[in-house]
């Protein structure tokens, strides 16, 4: 998967947790999950779990710490899926 492909799929993971669909539609790698998408921090674990399920990966503590913005999420998903191949 390319980073762009991951980004497209990531929108589906993030969608249940943001009401700002306009912001979600225009996300880029610098988009902050909390500040830009207004995702409540209480949903950060949900996003990690949903990403694990979607990509059949396991996200450890250190990787989870990076998932504060879209670029960080893509980094983690890319790294973990590459480890599987």
């Amino acid at each position, binding site marked *: 998967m390319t980073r762009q492909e991951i980004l497209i799929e990531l929108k589906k993971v993030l969608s249940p947790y943001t*009401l*700002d669909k306009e912001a979600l539609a225009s996300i880029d790698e610098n988009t902050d999950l*909390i*500040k830009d998408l*207004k995702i*409540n*921090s*209480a949903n*950060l*674990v*949900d996003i*990690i*779990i949903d990403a694990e399920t979607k990509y059949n990966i396991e996200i450890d*503590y250190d990787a*989870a*710490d990076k998932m*504060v913005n879209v670029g960080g999420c893509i980094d983690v998903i890319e790294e973990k899926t590459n480890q599987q191949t």
Partner: protein
Amino acid sequence: MIISAGNDIVDLQAIDTERTREPRFYSKFITGPETQLPSLPQLAAMPTEYFAWLLWSVKESVYKFEQRHNPGLVFSPSKIVVEHITPALSMACATTGPIEGQGFDEQPCYNSIIAFNQNKFYSRSIITSGFILTVVNNSDNFENMYWGVKPIEDSSPAYQSIQVREFILKKLGTFFEFNQLNIVKMPSGCPILHDGLTETSIPVSLAHHGHYVAYAFHLANV
């Protein structure tokens, strides 16, 4: 000693109870020795979802407390370790708010001791049928810590933001004659209390989740 404020609110109607009870979920932020805390007699009766969100709220409050003086700090819940919890004598009170207070001497609280970055923190958490509210300090003295929580009608982020600002500014307005108090968010997301264009020295913390908003601020010598 650093003066700061850190709080968090969890709306218990907004959580996914079943998911929270799954080890796969809570093991993302409850780590190491914390997994032994529920076996303590004083916590054995607490539902798993309450325990999980209590620890989450404590950890997030510590992060907010520290972030004020370290804007680049990343929220890493697994590195914020809740070492001990002393429970309230009565586990839950019926109120869903609003409630406000100075310190926690008159509240049934869960008191926690937390370790993070080689520092100790202390928290007070109120658990009701509606919410879990936590306020953190770097000393075990909360007498200068003011806090409040109240239910709101709409859970949209925009409404939460308006309501939590009105809530804290109304309280702060009882102490000062300033009429230009306002909250400015730093690029890090940390809220700063201004009087007009001037930054005040009063540390504030804001929280919202679901149908609740909450504030905390540290104010001495009033």
